[in-house]
């Protein structure tokens, strides 16, 4: 190395300033150098270039591998599960090419349900995808096996992937996404244990993790969590506090909910003769406004009092009206619909039904209301949702598409055809990205009729055709999924 450095130093300075010499050379190299430097017929530059060539060749011919004490790479633990079959990998490629996270999730669900693993060669691509899309992390970790966890030690972006078989293990050792899933799982079977886990870990967690863990308590909110949640209201993080307030608003029995109800109950009274009087009492306590209730109406036709009451009704559980009026849900609904003073608050009641996700109230409401309230749709049983969505599609196309997209159930072919017909009229909104997001809901059977769907406007034809081709690819891959995981 010293010999070569000497050559570099001479080259840097130039032979005009520093001539080539045999410094540091010995053995055959020195003999060669002596011959070169002793050749007076050659100029200084020639001598330098010849000597540099000899040393270059000497170095090149004598290259040796490096021997060094290297910390051995830990060997990855052997997998206990088998890799998915080649047919599944052949489907994975087109799935990846479509860029649809939903389709990829579906592929991963098939893979993990079949108790199979991703082959090692696919892991870097999948881990990278999961790094960019949090929703893929839990399933990628499950399908990645020990090899994905092993790779995570070399690439910090991928360390969300840890092998853990039981929810307890995932909770103790998993990455955040895995812990959230474990908490969800345990809460479904043992809510008290889930609360204990949360209470134990709470002081050790960062605000971001706290926020992620709290979201688990929304599915569904439980009265047993109220005391603990209320004790957290002094949390400093704004993000955590917002989630806490949202959760408490969803919990009848919480101080906040009770406070809302007290005001509402005071404002809406049933007279002895059966009439209902609506009058908002003076509000002395400002706390309700701090929890997000707006003081002023932004509509001239609606008074501030009505606006406040409207918001409060939409945040109190509809079952409270049963005791308040001493009537059944059906009677309460007809009371709201019948009395002029209550009619402006019917949409607020609908909002309360959806806010508390009360399916029974939703069904009762639908049975008695002659007006269709679109927001109630997600609260109804799936088949009823689809039937109503089909029935009212032409009236509320966009809202129905929004709700249908949020419901994981697959659409009926009839509803899907309506949605696609509408999408063809708005191809810039319902584009390839939209199809990527709803491929889970689109039935494969729609492929047969896709060609019959054409936009009304001729200038939409080209764009819609591209969307259709893309949708064709998505459906093609989706149709292959079920069969491709059989060995």
């Amino acid at each position: 190395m010293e010999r070569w450095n000497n050559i570099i130093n001479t080259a840097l300075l130039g032979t005009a300033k520093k001539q080539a010499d045999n410094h540091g050379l010995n053995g055959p190299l020195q003999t060669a150098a002596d011959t070169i430097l002793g050749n007076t017929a050659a100029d200084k530059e020639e001598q330098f270039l010849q000597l540099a060539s000899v040393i270059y060749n000497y170095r090149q011919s004598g290259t040796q591998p490096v021997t060094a004490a290297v910390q051995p790479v830990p060997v990855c633990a052997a997998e206990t599960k088998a890799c998915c079959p080649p047919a599944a990998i052949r489907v994975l490629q087109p799935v990846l090419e479509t860029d649809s996270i939903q389709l990829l999730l579906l592929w991963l669900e098939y893979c993990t349900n079949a108790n199979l693993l991703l082959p090692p060669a696919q892991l870097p691509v999948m881990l990278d995808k999961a790094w960019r899309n949090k929703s893929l992390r839990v399933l990628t970790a499950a399908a990645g096996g020990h090899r994905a966890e092993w790779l995570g030690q070399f690439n910090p972006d991928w360390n969300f992937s840890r092998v853990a078989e039981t929810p307890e293990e995932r909770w103790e050792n998993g990455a955040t996404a895995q812990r959230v899933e474990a908490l969800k799982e345990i809460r479904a079977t043992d809510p008290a244990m889930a609360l204990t886990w949360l209470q134990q870990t709470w002081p050790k967690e960062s605000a971001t993790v706290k926020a992620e863990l709290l979201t688990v308590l929304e599915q569904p909110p439980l009265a047993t969590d109220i005391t603990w949640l209320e004790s957290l209201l002094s949390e400093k993080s704004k993000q955590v506090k917002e989630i806490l307030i949202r959760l408490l608003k969803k919990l009848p029995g919480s101080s906040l909910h009770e406070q809302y109800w007290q005001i509402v109950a005071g404002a809406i009274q049933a007279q002895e003769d059966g009439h209902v009087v609506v009058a908002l009492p003076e509000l002395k306590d400002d706390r309700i406004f701090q929890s997000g209730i707006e003081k002023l109406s932004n509509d001239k036709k609606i008074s501030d009092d009505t606006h406040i009451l409207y918001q409060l009704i939409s945040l109190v559980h509809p079952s409270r009206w049963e005791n308040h009026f001493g009537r059944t849900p059906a009677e309460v609904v007809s009371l709201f619909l019948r009395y002029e003073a209550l009619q402006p608050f019917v949409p607020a009641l609908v909002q309360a039904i959806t806010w508390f996700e009360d399916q029974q109230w939703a069904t009762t409401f639908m049975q008695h209301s002659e007006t269709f309230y679109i927001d109630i749709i997600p609260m109804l049983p799936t088949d009823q949702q689809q039937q109503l969505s089909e029935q009212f599609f032409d009236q509320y196309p966009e809202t129905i598409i929004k709700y249908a997209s949020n419901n994981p159930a697959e659409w009926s072919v009839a509803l899907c055809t309506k949605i696609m017909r509408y999408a063809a009229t708005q191809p810039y909104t319902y584009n390839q990205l939209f199809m990527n997001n709803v491929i889970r809901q689109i039935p494969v059977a729609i492929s047969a009729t896709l060609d019959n769907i054409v936009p009304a406007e001729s200038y939409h034809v080209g764009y819609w055709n591209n969307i259709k081709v893309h949708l064709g690819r998505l459906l093609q891959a989706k149709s292959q999924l079920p069969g491709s995981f059989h060995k």
Partner: protein
Amino acid sequence: LNLSDEQVLAMAPDDSSRKSGKDLANPAKWVSKGVGDNALWGECQGSGSKPYQTQIDTGNMAFKCSCPSRKFPCKHGLGLLLQYSRQPDSFATQTPPAWVSEWLAKRAEREEKKAVAATAPEKQTDTTAQAKRQQARQQKVSDGTAELLRWIKDLVRNGIMDLPEKDPSFFENMIRRMVDAQAPGLAAMMRELADISYFHEGWQTVFMNQLIRIYLVIQGYQHLDQLPETLQQDVRSLIGFAQSQDELKEQTGITDTWRILGKQTTEEDRLVVERYWLCGIHTKRRALILQFFVRGQSTIANPLTPGATIQAELVYYPSAAPLRAIVKQQMTVPPDHRFSGFTGWEEVMAAQTAISAVLPVYNDQVYTIADLTPVWHQEQWWLQDSRQQLMPVKKGFPHIWKLLALSGGHPLSMAVTGREMQYEPIGVWHEHEYKIL
């Protein structure tokens, strides 16, 4: 015909073809498709009224398409092959339609004609005029090399310290001079010198390595008659004297079952260079097939499939250490995944020293080496052999994660390219199968 996605996509002449090929691996785009004994075909609905007719000779891996693209294979050929590799069951086995069978028959006819032409007597050439032309070119090259040597000497006299501040024209003028002197090989070597990143640490060594290589080529050319016959050929080709491929094809080559270890693609001024690295399963010889084309205008009708095995006759370019070769004839055969190669870095170094001894200016080589483990050491990845000896992985190697994922900390037999202290894996033997990276 059993190709993986990677193998099909590796045949693409560029990224845009790769992307379009993927889009066309969609059954909805194909009006008809079928597979026969030695052919794959399909009709793809393009923007025109008539669908494009795409056909692939699977026996000899050749593509033809009625689309106007000048790329080979075109996106339709890639899309069709990709679709077949993903869903072979969706192709009905049938007798090829007339447009396919006619093409196959024409190909067979051409092969026969070629064979007849090879045996036909050579046409008379005007040897006097040819000698005159050669003499004129040699003179031009001699003048060019003398000028380049003067330029090099000026450079070392004044020192290379201020090279990073030099204007690009400092190199460009000399590159153009080499082109004028009909020494394109030297021009390319000078281009490498100009392309060095002078703002990276250690540029001085990279620069001097290349400068000395150029100097050695000039010296070799100026003392050509004193060199062994084969080394003369190397110097001539390094200068840029072309070797007639027709002449090479007349020679008897080496017939073996060759594994196509991998493909590397580089591009310079729209000229795409594809390097296919091969290894003979029985002869253990290594070979490099070079293919050149202008970007977007690939005219290579018989692309090699990385990772595949072919039965082929290869003719090597004359060299003191033969590596570059041409494929005289080839036929795809079922893959042979047996590993054979060096046991460790020491053997590789010995082989490299043997090359260096006969060919001082040699380029990257390909080696198959048993049991290499990727290890992280001194902030970079290395390949450690079974005797715990290490060689660094080339910086910026794009497939390091795939390599690691396949390894899982276990040693893998690998195919690597490189020389001296820099190597790039191009494929591995994983679970008894050779896989390209």
